[in-house]
């Protein structure tokens, strides 16, 4: 990203103002510095409303909670009191915190990459079918549209130990029934499977959009060279959908880091914190234990993780995502 460009002398990259397109019409088309200043001021007018809400509900909260995370603020000390790094040190020595982090890491890696891979494969298969396209797209995509709360209820029923369709099917196949949400060994997996079902179609649709940009003649050429279906896609499609994959990856990271609804409705983090993940842990500390100091320090940690991921992703690929359409 060329952040530095705004430091350059303004006149250099300012062709538009000199052509005189102005806020109210062609009347103000002078080249005097005063007019240019006025024009710039007017560009800010377009941004101010959006920027105001962006500051109020994104950046101000982050700053405030970073400050609060250095304060003790819970049922025992009902007013925030400066406490230095205490909250963070406590978390460091807290087993649940590390379990939650491990669960989160597990959830993110296990759910993102298989989902992305299968989403791409299905996108390719659907892209090659002209008949029944809408049927295939919607049968994979509809779970994305279902509210997570509703999907969670549906899957609580599906996972229900005695009446649930999964255990009934397992019994039919002669496999022992599983405890699913009720057992600490399977609860996280149950949530991952359900989240997979929910997100697959969305990623597939983004890939399908990306595939529309791939030049079909490349496949013709590879076909004439005798490359089979799998080889054609490994060699042509996979590299060419790189930018789309990046977009999917970012979306997937956001979706999995914000996971809350299904945990609140399906397991409440249990049994024994086996399915507790960061956002739910924050919620617990804030709204169940009323330990706002700890909840805000967790928020600070989460924001730092997200910003680091953003920096890594944009640092490596930034140019490509932001400026492909330029």
């Amino acid at each position, binding site marked *: 990203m060329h952040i530095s*460009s705004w430091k350059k002398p303004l006149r250099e990259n300012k062709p*538009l103002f000199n*052509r005189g397109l*102005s*806020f109210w*019409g*062609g009347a103000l088309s002078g080249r005097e510095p005063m007019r240019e200043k006025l024009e710039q001021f*007017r*560009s800010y007018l*377009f*941004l101010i*409303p*959006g*920027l105001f809400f962006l500051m109020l*509900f*994104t950046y*101000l909260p*982050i700053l*405030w*909670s970073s400050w609060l995370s250095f304060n003790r603020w819970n049922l025992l000390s009902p007013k925030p009191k400066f406490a230095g790094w205490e909250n963070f040190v406590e978390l460091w020595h807290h087993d649940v915190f590390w379990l939650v982090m491990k669960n989160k890491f597990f959830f993110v890696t296990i759910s993102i990459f298989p989902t992305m891979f299968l989403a791409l494969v299905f996108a390719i298969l659907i892209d090659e079918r002209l008949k029944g396209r809408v049927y295939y797209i*919607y049968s994979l995509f509809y*779970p994305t*549209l279902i*509210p*997570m*709360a*509703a999907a969670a*209820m*549906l*899957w609580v*029923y*599906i996972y229900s130990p005695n*009446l649930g*369709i999964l255990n*009934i099917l397992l019994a039919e196949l002669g496999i022992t029934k599983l405890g699913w949400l009720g057992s600490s060994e399977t609860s996280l997996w149950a949530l991952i499977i359900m989240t997979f079902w929910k997100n697959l179609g969305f990623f597939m649709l983004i890939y399908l*959009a*990306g595939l*529309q*940009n791939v030049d079909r003649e490349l496949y013709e050429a590879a*076909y004439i060279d005798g490359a089979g*279906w799998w080889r054609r896609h490994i060699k042509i499609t996979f590299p060419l959908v790189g930018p*789309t994959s990046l*977009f999917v990856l970012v979306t997937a*990271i*956001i979706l999995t880091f914000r996971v*809350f*609804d299904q945990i*609140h*409705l399906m397991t409440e983090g249990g049994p024994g914190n086996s399915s507790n993940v960061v*956002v739910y842990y924050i*919620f617990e500390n*804030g*709204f169940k234990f009323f330990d*706002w100091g700890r909840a*805000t320090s967790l928020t600070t940690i989460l*924001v730092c993780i*997200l910003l680091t991921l*953003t920096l890594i992703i944009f640092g490596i690929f930034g140019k490509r995502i932001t400026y492909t*359409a*330029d």
Partner: protein
Amino acid sequence: MEEKKYEVVIKIFVLQIAAIVMILPFVWLISTALKNPSEVFTENLTLLPETFRWANFVEIMDQAPFWLYMGNTIIVCVGILIIQLLLVIPAAYAFARLDFPGKDVIFLLFVIQIMLPLESIIIPNYLITKKLGLLNTRTGLILPFVASGFGTFMLRQTFKQIPQSLEDAALMDGAGHLRFIWHVLIPLSRPTIVTFSMISIATHWNDYFWPLIITDSDEVRTLTIGLGMFVQQESGSDWSLLMAATLFVCAPIIAFFLVTQKTFIKNFLTSGIKG
């Protein structure tokens, strides 16, 4: 390029299996929602109810004000969308076609917001909403979502692709920024705007966490929260009623996307969402 016969068969087979596996939960949802409560408590797998019991829906309406919840959900979704568009379009225009000091830094602020969903900063947002006195109001449900980094990013990409010559022509005719946006940019960017609107509606129809923590009366609760409350009330005893309520919550949004599928798929596949 010809596909071999066996290839076609395998591909269709794989797709069909995937489609059936994905659809099966929903079919089961519909069938349970229409079953007699007594019919649910058997371990026999029946996909079709013996008798269709529409009374399940009447019963859930008696137990919780689901129509009120739906009204609230619609108000909140439409409210968010309208304000989002009012904020996003001018901002995207400034980023795409104007030049001013600090442009890249401010744009970065919008882009970074994409990576910071409300869920991750829910605690300070709750505290701020409390300070503003917006707890348990529809305004409180709407405002935190109105600045959309995602929408700004998406529309900026589209606005950038509108040829400069159109802008020059508009200028020749004496149009200002606002008339250029209204008469040229918006009509030409319709597919992206429609796609963004549909994504926005689907996202906020599904919101659960935010309404959960800031609402505490039926007057402002949305469908998803209503469903969660209903579940607690029922405590998982009557699956056919629970599934009827679940179906009621997701039916409108699915119906909306099925009705508009042509527009949605065409727009989504051709509009701004590309790497």
